């Protein structure tokens, strides 16, 4: 390696964009000295920060935190009680979701719609409008939050969310094409197109990211995802600009909404949601290991490629089903794992469990807010999630000390 390369390597940079997520310095001819920097390839800033923590042997990485600080919920008892509390909170939110709307109902009516159904307007509203909405919100919220947590563990990048695999873009493109070409109009018909689009895009992104000797590393995946998203975005724009009818149909779906879906949509996606949730909770231990970094994980005997592959399948299943059911809802997968991490630390078994409960809380709460604020019409949940979730994330980012990279 020439002098410039050596200087760059010593300073933690490489001459060209390193499209592998791992450190190749030790594999290069002559083993260029890494000096005192850990992980001497130019990675996305957050990844190198987390790597540095791992190499220093500090506690398992989450948002970088000075050693010695602790989270509010510690130990098995604390965390279990917290989870119980979160579940109770979820129950309250679910009840509120059944009650709130353009026709406000009280708890008795809401419960009676299931126990003593008498065909009245209120009971019909609860069972055919609000129940599907609540159930889909439950499923999609949990799925998105858990998928986000898994992505952040695998890519070791706190900015990761299922969107970077191009899932939202693929589903949106499939929907737009379906409306444009086939005139599909109802959400229950959208579901399969969206799922197919999400799946196809994720596969393409994965294959693109897997080109090269190192397989699908996080940076390569993210870059491939960004490229495919940009490409699909341009095609979507082309169709929407030229066909006003399609735009009129699709703009509501593209905002991300829980409204207008019946229980059929829920039953169609629930197998994927349930399977994905169970699989990701089972992957908790593996995620703990993989989030320590490739070298440490390999030293601990983990087969990183296999785990990454399984995680990719799980994420695609969860996120694809969510997008198919409710449209592209963007903030849950990013924000909820962050929030959860500040509560329970960096053990992914707990992070995923909490995300599965707090994700629906956030989603349903946003949905309720959207129903209240613009009565008698409503604001789509995808819009509310962003407007509510983003300031919270910003507050979180400002409160925590992020290590200077």
């Amino acid at each position, binding site marked *: 390696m020439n002098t410039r390369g050596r200087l760059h390597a010593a300073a933690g940079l490489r001459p060209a964009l390193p499209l592998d997520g791992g450190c190749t310095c030790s594999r290069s001819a002559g083993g260029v000295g890494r000096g005192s920097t850990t992980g001497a390839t130019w990675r996305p800033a957050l990844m190198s920060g987390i790597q540095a923590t791992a190499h220093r042997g500090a506690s398992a990485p989450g948002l970088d935190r000075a050693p010695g600080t602790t989270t509010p919920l510690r130990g098995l008892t604390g965390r279990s009680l917290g989870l119980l509390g979160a579940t109770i909170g979820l129950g309250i939110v679910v009840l509120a979701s059944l009650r709130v709307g353009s026709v406000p109902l009280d708890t008795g009516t809401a419960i009676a719609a299931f126990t003593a159904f008498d065909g009245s307007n209120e009971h019909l509203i609860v069972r055919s409008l609000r129940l599907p909405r609540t159930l889909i919100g439950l499923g999609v919220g949990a799925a998105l939050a858990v998928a986000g947590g898994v992505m952040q563990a695998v890519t070791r990048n706190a900015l990761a969310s299922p969107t970077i695999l191009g899932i939202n873009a693929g589903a949106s493109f499939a929907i737009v094409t379906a409306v444009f070409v086939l005139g599909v109009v109802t959400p229950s018909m959208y579901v399969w197109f969206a799922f197919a689009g999400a799946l196809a895009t994720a596969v393409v992104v994965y294959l693109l990211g897997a080109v090269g000797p190192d397989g699908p590393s996080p940076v390569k995946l993210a870059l491939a995802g960004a490229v*495919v998203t940009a490409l699909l975005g341009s095609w979507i724009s082309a169709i929407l600009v030229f066909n006003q009818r399609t735009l009129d149909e699709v703009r509501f779906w593209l905002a991300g909404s829980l409204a207008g879906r019946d229980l059929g949509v829920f039953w169609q996606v629930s197998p994927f949601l349930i399977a994905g949730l169970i699989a990701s909770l089972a992957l908790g231990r593996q995620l703990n290991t993989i989030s320590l970094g490739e070298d440490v994980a390999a030293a601990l005997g983990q087969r990183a490629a296999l785990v990454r592959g399984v995680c990719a399948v799980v994420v695609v299943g969860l996120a694809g089903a969510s997008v198919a059911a409710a449209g592209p809802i963007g903030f849950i997968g990013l924000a909820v794992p962050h929030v959860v991490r500040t509560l329970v630390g960096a053990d992914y078994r707990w992070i995923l469990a909490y995300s599965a409960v707090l994700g629906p809380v956030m989603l349903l709460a946003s949905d309720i807010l959207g129903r209240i604020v613009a009565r008698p019409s409503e604001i789509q949940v995808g*819009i509310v999630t962003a407007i509510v979730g983003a300031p919270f994330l910003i507050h979180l980012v*400002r409160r925590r000390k992020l290590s200077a990279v």
Partner: protein
Amino acid sequence: MSLLTTPRRTALRVQVPAGRARRLHVSTRVDLRVAALVSVVVVLALVIATWTMTLGEFPVPFADVLTTSLGRGDGTYDFVVRTLRLPRTLAAIGVGVALATSGAIFQALVRNPLVAPDIIGVNAGASLAAVFVIVSGGTSALIPVAALFGALGTTAGVYGLTWRKGISGNRLVLVGIGVNAVLAALTTLLIVRYPIEQVSSAVLWLTGTLYARSWEHVAGIAIGLAVLVPAALALMPQLRALQLGDDIARALGSRAEPARTGLLVAGAALAGSAVAVAGPVGFVALMTPHIARMLAGPLTGGVLMLAGALGALLVLASDLIAQHAFSPISLPVGVVTAAVGAPYFLYLLYRSNRRLV
């Protein structure tokens, strides 16, 4: 050895002697390979620009395009070239240079290859302001102004929210993503609430279009570039120091905070002026710096100029395809930039991945 292999070390040292005021000492190193690349790209861009101007409803011969643009034509093609096509071409060049430079600055500043002004809220702020003007029926002259103020206001907001005894790259990106999400959601709200007729033109603007760009637009972007690009080039040494990390940068004598602020402002203003002229043209700011780095190595002043030249080339080529590939339909340029840039970027990714064996 082709231009695409690892950089050679030949360099040309240019030094301006100190003179009396030692602070005015300017010296720079010119990497000949990068200079050659920049020249090639610039020539290519000019060829494509001229070719674009010859095409259209009124075909204009190549030589006449050149003479008329330079003001020495015989007047027959004045309207077509000087009023319709030349402003559009110059606007395309300006937008390309501005977006690519802005993307390069942000990616180097934050040391994250996935960062672009689109992601951290600059484009979203500009879009929200412009879409609001469009759907509420404001005059179209107001749109660029609104976009520029939206971009600058958003950057100020992101900066203010990130400031906590200093700016950290991580925090900036996270805050930017948050702000971006809010503004994008508000834009979606506008798109969902207003009647479809007004929303259509808003969506058209949102894809990024160079249709009917006039000399005012060109003047605007030219002023922006004239001020900001030299500023960015002057801050290049600071940027390279910052890339080594704050501590090393300070040890090297660079003042981290003012340098970062200056670079941030330059990057955001460049993106803002590009959006004001053509709307949020996607992909250019994200990918052009990657392509430049893959061709020429880590960011220096020369690589910044290469990125700018590549940005201009990309936008010009996209505009050519957008206007004439599917005639009589004329696509918005934003639709084509990704379609043109993505395959080339994927090819470069593939090549550079294979080279790591």
